[in-house]
Every structure is written in structure tokens, then in C-alpha cells.
């Protein structure tokens, strides 16, 4: 056992500690400065005695930090929780900072019921020290040597006891700053909850009126068409144009509200992925079909071509007959499809005429699936290039400025990468995203892909 006696006079005082609680009775605030002491305790049993005695000596306030869940279990078994309940009965104000989980909740709820104020500590004390401060005049700080041990005596390391202001008051300051921090975290959690609730209500409130607007305008358009003969051609054309305008604007509003809701979800951390194995060719084909439908009758000089390089070469149309290998990725198909549609939509917006080429490939190491969209449009505006994937950095007419931001967040959530490059030589830019195949169920199947795969990938870049 190792004791460090700092002052000669302290020894007298320290010895009297053995006779706790008398040694630190109600007149302890008037301990003369010369008997203030700082001691290091190494014997677990002695630490335990000191710990209990100190709690019993409290007359007005106990501040306590349980560094880990396990420490609460351990100290419950040496009677600490009961002692705390006893202290509350004697009108001692007890504040506890601790980790909290479902397993420990019943213990803590018991304490709460007795009047102990407990707050969840968000920043685990990395040193795992346990801290007890009594009446702002004495402190016991215990090091956790091995948190995996279930016995108090096996888990604790050295401890320092102090009744010197020079150490106790700084500990009080540390405790109070942790306490304030938990307040901030609690407020942040509450704000998150309110925000979540708001997002859900907003989702409902925004979507609900959009539905009758679009349907109502469609009804007008359809009814107009049925009575076309009875109307002046100019009047008919004007009314059709107006109802189209309503439908278009409401659809834009719908898209914007969906984007904003998704951003809110992402930022509130309530964004969820619905992962499953998805056929890359199907994914690309349906995204292309969606875009072609959107631009039906417009952009007739722009052609979208799909080249599944993982099959060994380009093909025309959505399906091919030559190669049977399927390339699948483990992802949220709806969200990845949203990314692809968004990139394709951008490509369409910025391309007046020419080809938009979609390629899919497996990278040379077989660790990533790459899907890229190469357009022959106006290229990336240098002024927005540095913040291309940030919120509201848009240069397109009618864009929400959220598309690429959302795309990046979606790809990030898949542990993938997304980037843009300027095409060398010709005009336009290429957007590529890569998704890991680490979760790929049939990883070995990748070995069966065409051997020319790597060369094709180089071409892709």
C-alpha cells in the first residue's frame, strides 16, 4: 500500500479519516488550511471505505460521475446506490452524471424516483475516471484500471483523495462544465426531435395540397380536350397552356418539397437506406426511361446511350442478348436511381444536342462498381465548380440546387464516391459515382466478368 503524505499535519487528520464519518463531520467547512490534505490511495478496499464514508459525510451536496455503465453495476454491488438514496433522505442534493443504456435504466430510475438528479453524459471521460465531490470540500477521484471486471476491487486503480480547495474546486468546475454540456446535448436532442416531427408534418402538409392541384389541372386539361370543338382554337390553346403551366409548377413544387424533406432527414440523421441486391442494367435502363419520359417531345437532338462495359461492350437499347453476366450492386435502389436520374437530368439540361453516354463498369481491382454519365453539354461553370456538391449551388434554370448535394449524401451513405470531371478534347463533363462491392454476396462471380474489363475502365476515365 502506498500513501503519500504531503504535510506533516495532515497525517493527524488523515488518520482520523479512518474513523469516518466523524472525521469529516458537519463542521468540515471550517477545517483549518494546514490540515488540508491530498492523498493517493492504492488499496481497493481502502478506496471503497473512503468512497462510502465520504458519501455518508455529505451534509449538503454530492456530485458524482459514473464513467461507464459497468461502473454503475460494480458500485451498485458495493452499496453506493443505496448510500446515495440515504443521502437524499438527509436533504443532501445529489447530482449524477453517467452513461445510460437500457440495461442500467431500472437502477437509474430508482435513483431518480428518490430525488437524485441524473444526467446522461455524452462525452465519455476517456480516462474513465470516477469522481465524487462532497459538499465542495472533499473529493475522491478513482482511476478505472479495467472496466471489464465486474468486481470493484479488480476494476479500480489508484485514487486521489483531497480536501484541499486547490484540487476540490477545479474538480467542481470540471463537474459543472460537464453538467452544462449535458444540458446543451439535451437541448440539441429536443431540437432534433422537434425538427423530426416538423419534417414529418411538413411532408404531409406539403404533399397533401399538391395532389389536388395536379389532379385538378389534369381534370381541366382533359375536360377541355373533350369539348375542344366548342371552343375557339386560340382560347383552347391558351387554356391548355395554362393548365400545363399549373401542372408543371406544381410538379416542380413537389420535387422541391421532396428534396427539402430529404435534406432535412439527412441532416436530422433520420435518413434510412433500404439495401438489397440490384441489377445495374435494370437500374440504368429504368433511369434512362424516366428521363426520356420527362423530356418526351423536347431535346429531340439529344440521345442517351448506355454502354455496359462490364458486359464487355456497348449495347443499344436497355437489354442485350450477347452477354449473360449480370452485374449487381448492394444498394438502396430507389435512392441510387434518384442519383442517376438527377445526374442524367443535369446532363439533359446542359446539353443542346449530341450524345449522353452512360457507362457501367467494375474497377480493375474488383472493389467498386462505377457508373458514369458523360454529356456533350456546356461543361461545369467554373464559378460553381468548387462547391458543386454543396447545397443550393445551382446554375440551372428550374433546378432546386439540392440535386447534387443530395446525390453526394446518398452516395456517401453507401460508402461510395461521386465526382465530376471536364471532358478532355470535346465539350461537356462526366459525372461518375462508385459504389463498393464489399457487401456483394457473390464476390467470386466477379472473376467471371469479361477479361477486357480493366482496359475498358481506363477508357472510361
Amino acid at each position, binding site marked *: 500500500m502506498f500513501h503519500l503524505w504531503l504535510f506533516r499535519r495532515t497525517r493527524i487528520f488523515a488518520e482520523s479519516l479512518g474513523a469516518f464519518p466523524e472525521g469529516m463531520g458537519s463542521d468540515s467547512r471550517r477545517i483549518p488550511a494546514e490540515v488540508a490534505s491530498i492523498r493517493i490511495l492504492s488499496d481497493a478496499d481502502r478506496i471503497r471505505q473512503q468512497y462510502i464514508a465520504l458519501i455518508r459525510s455529505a451534509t449538503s451536496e454530492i456530485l458524482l460521475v459514473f464513467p461507464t455503465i459497468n461502473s454503475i453495476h460494480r458500485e451498485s454491488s458495493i452499496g453506493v446506490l443505496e448510500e446515495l438514496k440515504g443521502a437524499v433522505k438527509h436533504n443532501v442534493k445529489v447530482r449524477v452524471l453517467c452513461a445510460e443504456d437500457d440495461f442500467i435504466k431500472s437502477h437509474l430510475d430508482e435513483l431518480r424516483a428518490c430525488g437524485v438528479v441524473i444526467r446522461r453524459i455524452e462525452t465519455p471521460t476517456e480516462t474513465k475516471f470516477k469522481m465524487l465531490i462532497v459538499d465542495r470540500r472533499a473529493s475522491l477521484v478513482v482511476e478505472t484500471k479495467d472496466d471489464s471486471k465486474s468486481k470493484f476491487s479488480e476494476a479500480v486503480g489508484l485514487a486521489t483523495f483531497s480536501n484541499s480547495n486547490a484540487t476540490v474546486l477545479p474538480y467542481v468546475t470540471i463537474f459543472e462544465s460537464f453538467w452544462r454540456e449535458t444540458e446543451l446535448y439535451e437541448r440539441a436532442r429536443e431540437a432534433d426531435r422537434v425538427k423530426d416531427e416538423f419534417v414529418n408534418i411538413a411532408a404531409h402538409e406539403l404533399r397533401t395540397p399538391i*395532389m389536388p392541384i395536379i389532379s385538378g389541372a389534369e381534370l381541366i386539361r382533359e375536360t377541355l380536350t373533350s369539348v375542344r370543338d366548342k371552343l375557339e382554337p386560340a382560347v383552347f390553346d391558351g387554356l391548355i397552356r395554362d393548365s400545363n403551366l399549373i401542372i408543371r409548377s406544381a410538379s416542380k413544387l413537389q420535387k422541391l418539397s421532396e428534396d427539402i424533406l430529404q435534406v432535412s432527414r439527412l441532416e436530422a440523421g433520420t435518413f434510412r437506406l433500404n439495401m438489397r441486391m440490384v441489377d445495374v442494367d435494370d437500374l440504368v435502363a429504368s433511369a434512362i426511361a424516366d428521363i426520356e419520359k420527362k423530356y418526351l417531345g423536347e431535346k429531340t437532338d439529344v440521345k442517351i446511350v448506355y454502354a455496359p462495359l462490364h458486359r464487355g461492350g456497348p449495347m443499344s437499347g436497355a437489354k442485350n442478348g450477347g452477354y449473360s453476366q449480370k452485374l449487381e450492386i448492394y444498394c438502396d435502389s430507389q435512392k441510387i436511381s434518384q442519383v442517376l436520374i438527377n445526374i442524367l437530368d443535369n446532363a439533359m439540361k446542359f446539353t443542346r444536342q449530341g450524345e449522353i453516354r452512360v457507362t457501367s463498369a467494375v474497377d480493375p481491382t474488383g472493389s467498386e462498381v462505377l457508373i458514369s454519365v458523360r454529356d456533350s453539354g456546356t461543361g461545369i461553370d467554373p464559378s460553381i465548380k468548387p462547391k458543386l456538391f454543396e447545397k443550393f449551388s445551382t446554375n440551372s434554370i428550374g433546378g432546386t440546387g439540392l440535386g447534387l448535394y443530395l446525390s453526394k449524401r446518398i452516395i456517401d451513405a453507401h460508402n461510395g464516391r461521386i465526382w465530376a470531371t471536364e471532358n478532355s478534347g470535346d465539350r461537356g463533363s462526366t459525372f461518375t459515382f462508385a459504389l463498393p462491392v464489399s457487401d456483394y454476396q457473390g464476390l467470386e462471380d466477379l472473376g467471371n466478368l469479361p477479361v477486357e474489363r480493366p482496359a475498358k475502365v481506363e477508357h472510361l476515365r
Partner: protein
Amino acid sequence: VLIVDDERDIVDVLKRGLSLKGIDVDAFSDPLEALTEFKPGRYDFVVTDIRMPRMNGFDLYRGIRSQDANVRIYLLSAYDNLQNEVNAMLSADALLGFLRKPISYSELAKLLFSETRMPDLADVS
């Protein structure tokens, strides 16, 4: 088709829109009334909102399903946070679907037509 939604504008526009497409529509903005008036075998489809006062779409679904095992039922909602509950129900009933608002009457009509085509073909063969 039976349409149930507490939003009168939605009920109205869907009813008129689907009628225009040649679909017979009964529509209610009160789910309890819809359930009282429900007659097994009368409808090919039921489209119901989920969040409604007096009775939610889940209960209405259960009430209808207990009377009619063959009607195809679509739950319609603008809420995302009901997804888990909906998914569990979808996996338990092959004749149940989920539609997210907003959906226009023409999209709905297209869906309903594509659903009816299959049984028609089966009947012919």
C-alpha cells in the same frame, strides 16, 4: 373502386378524374361511413388514406379485409414515418399495396387498369 380520404378535395378530384377515365367510383371522406356502406364483392379496388380522424386506414383495411378476401386494397399516405408498419402489413397480404401521396388521378387510373388487365386475361384463358 372505393376511395376513402378525409381530405374532401382529394376525394373529389380522384372521383371525378377516375370517372373521366371510365372507372366507377364510390367515395367517402368518412372511413366509418365507408365501412358501414361496404359491400363484399362490389369493388375491385379500395384506395384509402391512412391518417384519418375517427378511424385510421389500417383499421379500415382490417375491417374491409375481414369481409372481402379478394378486393385489392391500396393504402395511400403522405407520411413517411408509417413505413415500417406498412411494410409489415404488405408482406402479410399479397393483395395490399402502398401508394405515396401525391399521386394524380391519371397515374392512379393507369395503375388500376394495369392491375385489372391480368385477371381479365386469366379469365379469357
